[in-house]
């Protein structure tokens, strides 16, 4: 898509034209924690096959935004659209809606959250069997295939505690992919890793992006945002401050708030 034109009349617009139908569409999403407004009127579109990076200072609401997409946090108002499914937050979310929504979404956490009492293979197979009803052989075939993709075939029988952080995160990615999501959500996937281990996770994410997966990535890795993501969203104080092609947002931020943030990130 070549609307990556450098003309950005309104840099805080993260939505596509109305005639395009995106895979993920958020309209006027708000989230309060008690009195505290964490997300303020977020509208955002993510197109199929797009890689979106969300950056911003801590406390800016970027993780909350991600967690609102798969309803780990329930938005207080607004609407969310993934594929053919629309959820309005004017009523408590129904179980059926939650199931249908999560079916389309895979999530990768900062702290991996593998199940420590199961082997790597069981970690990847159990969700397939319980959630998708796959037979054991089928689930194992999928798991082995994915382990090969993330370069960890030899770890199938190991327990998570015997894997490095980078390996655990790659296993967590395989576990999420095994359920055939349409969108992958990443919540600071490399923040708990040292740079070298982070790199092996980033390279898995890079090839995932190459394969056409739709990805929403909350990250502090500006190089990943710049090189891999199509668009970058800069958030502060619960609002989208800037959005646009990654190079533009990171290299030529228009708002003072974003300029301050990227200066700090670049250590200047």
């Amino acid at each position, binding site marked *: 898509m070549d609307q990556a034109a450098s003309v950005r009349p309104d840099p805080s617009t993260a939505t596509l034209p109305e005639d395009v139908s995106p895979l993920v569409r958020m309209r006027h999403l708000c989230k309060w924690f008690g009195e505290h407004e964490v997300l303020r009127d977020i509208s955002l579109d993510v197109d199929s096959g797009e890689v979106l990076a969300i950056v911003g200072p801590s406390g800016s609401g970027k993780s909350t935004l991600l967690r609102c997409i*798969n309803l*780990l946090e329930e938005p207080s108002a607004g609407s969310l659209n993934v594929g053919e499914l629309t959820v309005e937050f004017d009523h408590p979310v129904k179980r059926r809606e939650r*199931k249908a929504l*999560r*079916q389309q*979404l*895979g*999530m990768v*956490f900062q*702290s991996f*959250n*593998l*199940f*420590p*009492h199961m082997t790597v293979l069981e970690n990847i197979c*159990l*969700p397939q069997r*319980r*959630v998708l009803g796959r037979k054991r052989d089928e689930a194992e075939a999928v798991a082995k295939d994915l382990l090969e993709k993330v370069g960890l075939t030899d770890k199938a029988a190991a327990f998570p505690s015997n894997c490095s952080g980078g390996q655990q995160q790659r296993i967590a990615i395989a*576990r*999420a992919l095994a*359920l055939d999501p349409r969108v992958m959500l990443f919540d600071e996937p490399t923040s708990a890793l040292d740079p070298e281990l982070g790199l092996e996770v980033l390279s898995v994410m890079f090839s995932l992006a190459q394969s056409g997966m739709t990805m929403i990535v909350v990250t502090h890795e500006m190089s990943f945002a710049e090189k891999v993501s199509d668009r970058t969203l800069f958030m502060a104080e619960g609002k989208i401050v800037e959005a646009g092609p990654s190079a533009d947002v990171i290299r030529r931020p228009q708002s003072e708030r974003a300029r301050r943030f990227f200066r700090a990130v670049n250590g200047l």
Partner: protein
Amino acid sequence: MGATWSDVADWIEPLSRGFVLNLEITFITILLGFPGGFVLALLVERRSPWVRWPAMVIVEIGRGAPALVLLQFVYFGFPQIDLTLSSFASAIVALSVSTACYTSEIIRSGLAAVPKGQKEAAEALNFSSADSMRFVVFPQAAKISSPAMMGFSILILQSTTLCFTIALPEIASQAYEIGSTTFQYFPILSLTALFFIFVCVPASFLVGWFERRSEP
């Protein structure tokens, strides 16, 4: 006049017969009380006050009342409401209730000690809440709680001797009966204590070993 070794040999048989009852009651109490404790732990954690409050009241009564009082209440008290139970059944009922109430707190803290990220991962993977409990949270909570649960099992075995007050021919009643006919209280009660030491000391070592092993 002290007891002779041949006296002791004669006592072994009735004491063993009694001790088998203590072990049986302990075993059945664990079998009923631990799952009961798990159910109470889940109920106390429910959001609805209609479920939570009654469960909390049951737990507090069960923990507040001494096991001896519960035993007597079931055995002597229930017949007044036309519910007569044998001493064995009364022991099972009273000790299971007491065990369920005490262990519900142990299990609850075990469930709470499972990292939040584990539940979130299960949720994000679209597990049903029953599957999340069964495959993710419970196995980890059970491992965290098991040293305390094993320790509590030893306490159950010891508290089964309270059943001598409800005419159950368990080891303490056997010892008391022999004592009251021979007046050899010192050796007979020592022998009774040995039965418990024989089981409880190795069990305590096992718990200690298990605790060390399950430290992260």
